[in-house]
């Protein structure tokens, strides 16, 4: 190991982790790299990509502000994380340690390299012309530098809240001890869904959705933009609930494996709140869109919602059954 790496164990441990990921899982790592490349190619081929990048190149001040905002938030968040990790990681007691600023700078440099590589690839693919490319690259780099400095100087927030702080403690059933019920199991995927759809995760999706709305002379009216944002948020929350139920199924089945609980009871207890919440949320969404576009809602919205609800039910049930099979819950005996 080179001397400079030995002097910065936080950095060297991360580099070694990356290298080990390739050594121990070469197929998966290569597959991930290929997927990223394919995703970039798809983005380059999408019709709006060229106009959006060109517009950002011509309006370089906006590109500068966007880059500065992204890097300000990222730096502030990374700085807080680095401070916590410096104090709590397994390397904290070592005499040689990387100061938090070095961890933040290395991380932000990696992200900036990613942004620049994306713009360069788009230029090489002919998606963006030379003049727009130069302006966009300079604005992005300058915005990133300003953002890193601003993010570093932002006042520190409270110590990062773990995920469960986003969830809500539900009211206790009065007869929890005298007549226990499985119904609180439904709170677990609901809480996980809230964590999946918390603002930090929803914000990037909203930005993409808002950028896709036409602007300029032929812009969409403000209320349409707001409606699109609202629908996106609702859909994101609904999809998050399905994803949460799938994820929770495996942890819950393993936790409850030593009990006599059956597969069907487990599936119903796990999924009832998720499905009910989704039905209510999508019904409200249909009512709201129906009040504006009644014909389109009935023709397109209702079948789509019904299809999604059925798909969600099937996915959650299949995940719960598979989780039961893997954990040995229900009738799945394990002793030979």
């Amino acid at each position, binding site marked *: 190991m080179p001397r400079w790496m030995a002097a910065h164990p936080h950095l060297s441990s991360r580099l070694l982790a990356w290298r080990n990921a390739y050594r121990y899982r070469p197929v998966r790592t290569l597959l991930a790299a290929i997927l990223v490349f394919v995703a970039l190619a798809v983005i380059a081929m999408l019709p709006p990509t060229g106009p959006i990048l060109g517009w950002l190149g011509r309006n370089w001040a906006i590109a500068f502000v966007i880059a500065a905002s992204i890097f300000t938030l990222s730096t502030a968040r990374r700085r807080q994380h680095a401070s916590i990790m410096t104090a709590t990681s397994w390397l904290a007691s070592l005499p040689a340690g990387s100061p938090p600023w070095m961890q933040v700078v290395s991380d932000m440099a990696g992200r900036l390299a990613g942004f620049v590589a994306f713009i360069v690839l788009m230029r090489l693919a002919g998606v963006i012309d030379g003049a727009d490319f130069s302006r966009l690259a300079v604005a992005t780099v300058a915005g990133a530098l300003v953002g890193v400095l601003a993010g570093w100087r932002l006042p520190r927030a409270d110590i990062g809240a773990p*995920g469960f702080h986003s969830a809500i403690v*539900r009211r206790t059933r009065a007869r929890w*001890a005298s*007549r*226990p019920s499985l119904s609180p199991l439904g709170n677990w995927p609901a809480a996980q869904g809230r964590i999946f759809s918390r603002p930090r995760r929803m914000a990037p999706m909203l930005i993409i959705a808002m950028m896709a709305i036409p602007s300029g002379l032929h812009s969409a009216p403000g209320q349409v933009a707001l409606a699109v944002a609202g629908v996106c948020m609702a859909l994101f929350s609904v999809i998050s609930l399905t994803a949460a139920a799938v994820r929770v199924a495996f942890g819950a089945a393993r936790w*409850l494996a030593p009990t*006599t609980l059956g597969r069907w009871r487990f599936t119903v207890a796990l999924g009832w709140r998720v499905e009910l919440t989704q039905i209510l949320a999508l019904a409200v969404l249909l009512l709201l869109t129906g009040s504006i576009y009644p014909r389109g809602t009935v023709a397109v919205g209702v079948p789509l919602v019904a299809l999604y609800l059925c798909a969600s039910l099937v996915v959650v049930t299949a995940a719960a059954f598979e989780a039961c099979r893997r954990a040995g819950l229900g009738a799945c005996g*394990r002793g030979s």
Partner: protein
Amino acid sequence: MDEVLLVQSLQAGYDKLIVLNGVDLKVARGEWLALLGPNASGKTTLLHCVVGLLAPSAGSISICGHGLRDEAKAAKGALGFGCAPESLPNLLTGRQCLEIYAAAKGLAAIGGEVLALAEEFAFSPMLDRFVGSYSLGTKQKLAVLLALLGEPALVVLDEAFNGLDPASALVLKRHLRSRVSARNCGVLLATHALDVVERYSDRASLLLNGRIAREWSSEELAALRATPGEGLEVAMAAACAGSQGA
């Protein structure tokens, strides 16, 4: 003797790694068996097989006479397992965990004995907080309470005293001893806490190289307790050294 756990010729492992290779074990009703062994000797693997979390490749397990494979429901109905604290659901409260577990075991109510133990553990103020906000010791208390729900005939605990404060550890030791002495249940405890084994358990088994390498009866444990400077620690170290030399 009324056996609550019978393990015969058990083989188990992970992928190609064989961890248990012909383990035989018995726990009788009214008996506390301590499972000892060095790190990575297979104690947790054995417990996971006993509670049905891991499928053995060969051998048989029966709980209260019910085979874990053929009569899984009946076998698990007689089982209480103290899961690893880190596997508890962070997004549920302690009260919700107790309620769900009781319902999953098909209990009509959570027994007063468990609620009283929660009081003795000073766990009651934590009941309505998320498990994710608990300390290691508090999670351990919840895991133990879950294991004791429903008066199980066989209580299986893995390092149950890890993280417990001395007062709570004493409460738990006495509680388990009183349950066992009243012949309510059998206890299988995997532990490194040799003082617990010497003072509270009836028998001890040493797991080495995938087999039970040495067993201490209650008389032998009493003799070790009575001999100054010759505790279980020395006897276990000698057994481990003998096994490596063999």
